[in-house]
């Protein structure tokens, strides 16, 4: 799946030209704002996102759906889950 095959309502985060960890930081800022499960595609030119975004998802409880290289871009799809108050 790439940015062109996303579910309706999916959010596109363009981080082209930014070097890691800035794409992860932009994703984190967005993920903290979601109120319901939201699919987001991060478009980046730094290949670091291929390692960093899945890792960030694993530690913070979001879901890494897929990663794909298209020409000189990387499309990383994430299902951002709303965070909750648990105490």
């Amino acid at each position: 799946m790439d940015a062109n095959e996303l579910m309706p309502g999916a959010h596109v985060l363009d981080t082209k030209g930014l070097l890691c960890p800035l794409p992860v930081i932009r994703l984190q800022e967005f993920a903290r704002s979601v109120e319901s499960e939201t699919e987001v595609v991060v478009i980046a030119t730094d290949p670091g996102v291929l390692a960093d975004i899945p890792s960030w998802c694993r530690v913070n409880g979001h879901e890494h759906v897929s990663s794909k290289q298209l020409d000189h871009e990387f499309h990383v799809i994430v299902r951002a889950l709303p965070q909750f108050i648990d105490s």
Partner: protein
Amino acid sequence: MTALSRQPRAVALISGGLDSMLAAKVVQSQGVYVEGVNFFTGFCVEGHTQAVKRTKKQKVKRHSALWCAEQIGIPMQIVDISEDYKDIVINPEYGYGRLLNPCLDCKIFMVNRALDLKSNHGEPFDFVITGEVVGQRPKSQRSETMAIIAKDSGAEDRLLRPLSAKNLPPSLPEREGWVDRAQLHGFSGRSRKPQFSLAKELGINEWSQPAGGCCFLTDESYTKKLQDLWDSRGRRDYDLEDVVLLKIGRHIRPAPHYKLIIGREEGENQYLRGFRHKFAYMSTVSHVGPLCLIDGDPTKEERLLASRILARYSQGRTARDVTIRITDQSGVSEEIVVEPLQPHSIPREWTLTN
């Protein structure tokens, strides 16, 4: 604050090195909810250069702090402080370390920012954890300076250093019984042995860089270029683009009013191409060679010299003539044929990097 009727929450500063990882793990293993934070200052060694340089293996490097968080099983935020951090780098109240590293101010700033963070669940933290060890660093980790960090950051006794806690007055989490002081440590000094044996005890077999190796402000070559940038501008200022460009390429300053930035391999050339709208630049026409950005305004004669320097770094370095294309900022190009400069003709003091 008194006894908590819920699980205590702490935020741990995670640098990507072993000490901060151990500190977070020690507290987490006492039943405290621990989240990590890694601050992006712009000067982090990771990221930029690794993304730009094309290593032979084309291996994508991991972000060490994220990797640490995964190893010890804690959530982690990466927070961009690069803009506010400028003031720390430019005007550190407590001065610099050996190079341009404002470690004491930096720690005060980071602990202060950590205090204000909210957890992934939107809740404030009860205290802050760092991996500092008394006596490990000559300037920022003496017991007096550790007290300054606690005070000036505003954290006061809400700052816990689990690796050295027994050498320091009891912090709030210890006094309140949120953590058991008896199970904390009393490491001090520069020896890393206690950390290595604690890592073994905690089942941590792998860690990233040596402590302190994560910041360009402690790198001699980098800080030389940063100081040169400030000297050439006549003011101490920078933006994120400057910070990145200082990490990339070979920097040669033949005169105070201009500098050459020459790519050292294809990844750097590619990255430097992205700056062609901002700088005049040169490339080799007759031979394969790197891209060179011209930062400043050389005269016509100086452009000739710059071309000869670039030719020296091209595959035509031993040829009699090399054709160089110079493109100014408005996109107008001219080609000139030059004889490559011999390596010994480039004075050492011009070279800011190898």
